[in-house]
């Protein structure tokens, strides 16, 4: 039954939304959007390296995303204003990836597939990787949930209860790299952060607790995938950007539905 490309696309979108909902919530709470961008951009370099060394694209992107995520994580640990350094690293990694791609001779690489995703070309193997990665991230987050939330509130508060905030940051770093690697095929390096950020930000307007926000983010991410695919099919628009457009529309609706926020 997985022979239908559309069914595979739907399942891929659902798989990514499963992991992106809760992880994206942490990205919002901890203001890690730039962090997500840098990690996703590094994945483009990973694609080039994968072709260069003839390894699986998932392996290459996971390694570069991990390297970038840990580099950025150590910057975060130093505190201070790091937006500039993050911007430098993020865009340098993206440009380096694009330059490296141009050196690949003999391989025809569809660059736009990695920048904007190619969800309609997801294979059964891709699907296995996406769902495996999503399961791994969900398990990791569920296991560390209470500690992660406490560390998100306040470092000292966490430490007083015996929770090492740096270790919890590493958990998120690892999860982010995994999501980037598996979502690259679905929405592409330039739009991965959108898939993390927008459903979670939409869920914020509808939720009263962290858990409901994460669950609603999963639901809205799935909805955006389905609506985006539908749009792509009927209007013949690129699938990845269509999914993000749908997510943006859902965000607008959530603003209108959400109760006025008490300060």
């Amino acid at each position, binding site marked *: 039954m997985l022979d239908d490309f559309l069914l595979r696309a739907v399942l891929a979108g659902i798989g990514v939304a499963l992991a992106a909902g809760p992880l994206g919530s942490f990205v*919002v709470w901890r203001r890690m959007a730039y962090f997500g961008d840098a990690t996703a951009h590094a994945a483009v370099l990973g694609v080039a390296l994968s072709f260069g060394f003839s390894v699986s694209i998932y392996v290459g992107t996971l390694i570069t995303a991990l390297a970038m995520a840990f580099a950025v994580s150590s910057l975060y640990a130093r505190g201070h204003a790091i937006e500039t350094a993050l911007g430098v690293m993020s865009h340098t990694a993206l440009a380096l990836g694009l330059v490296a791609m141009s050196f690949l001779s003999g391989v025809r690489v569809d660059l736009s597939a990695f920048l904007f995703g190619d969800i309609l070309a997801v294979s059964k193997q891709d699907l296995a990787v996406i769902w495996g990665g999503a399961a791994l991230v969900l398990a990791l987050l569920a296991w560390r949930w*209470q500690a992660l939330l406490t560390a*998100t*509130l*306040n470092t*000292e508060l*966490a430490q*007083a209860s015996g929770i090492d905030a740096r270790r919890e940051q590493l958990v998120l770093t690892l999860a982010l790299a995994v999501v980037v690697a598996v979502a690259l095929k679905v929405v592409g390096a330039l739009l991965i952060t959108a898939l993390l950020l927008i459903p979670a930000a939409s869920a914020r307007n509808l939720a009263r607790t962290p858990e409901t926000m994460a669950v609603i983010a999963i639901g809205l991410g799935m909805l955006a995938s389905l609506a985006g695919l539908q749009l792509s099919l009927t209007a013949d628009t690129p699938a990845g950007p269509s999914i993000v457009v749908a997510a943006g529309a859902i965000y607008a609706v959530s603003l209108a539905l959400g109760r006025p926020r008490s300060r």
Partner: protein
Amino acid sequence: MSLIEARNMSVAYTDTPALAAVDLSIEPGEIVTVIGPNGSGKSTLIRALLGVVAPSGGSIHRKPGLRIGYVPQKLSLDANLPLTVRRFLCLPRRHSAAEIAAMLERVGVPGLQERQMSALSGGQFQRVLLARALLMKPEILILDEATQGLDQPGVAAFYRLIEAIRSEMGCAVLMVSHDLHVVMRATDRVVCLNGHICCEGAPTVVSEMPEYRALFGLGTGGALALYQHAHDHEHDHLGAGDGHDHHHPHHGAA
């Protein structure tokens, strides 16, 4: 056995010394207050005792398995994090609805369970922070300038509550504070900090010591005068300032 003991401890942030040669131990059940001007290393001391920063010299010993209830100076919650009081109180350990209701009642803010943290007043917020710390059944309660943003009657009421809770639960209390005269009445031991421990002892003894007077004013009204002086609400930024940027007691102002 001491709950926490620092021996000849020093802490430095990227070559800037913040604390030097600190010897401090907290015994079960006692109330210890740390006072000192801005930049004197009060928050650094707390961070070191909690284990957030590692000492650059000397040592810290915490009783194995020590249960710490920590009340931070402030908690800046991201506006995008929806959090009810009930959910907050269950971090990092979950508690039964009955325990939560009883604790909120005990700290004087019953029935707030379903309220969003962001919708609480300053006084309610501090009491909810305290409730969370107490639900940990702490052996030691650590309060870092916990009365920031409360008015004077609010501050007095908060410290009366701390005293009452100490006698009920028998936990030790370590407080960092600016509210000198209120705090000193409620405390067993005062530690006067300015990069190192200047002086230490019972409140009445410490307030007569020359080191204390040098920091907080000369006259008998010194403590009171400093307390009534409007604080600038800047707190020790790590490694910044030399610790002498802010004290000019108003003699006779009281």
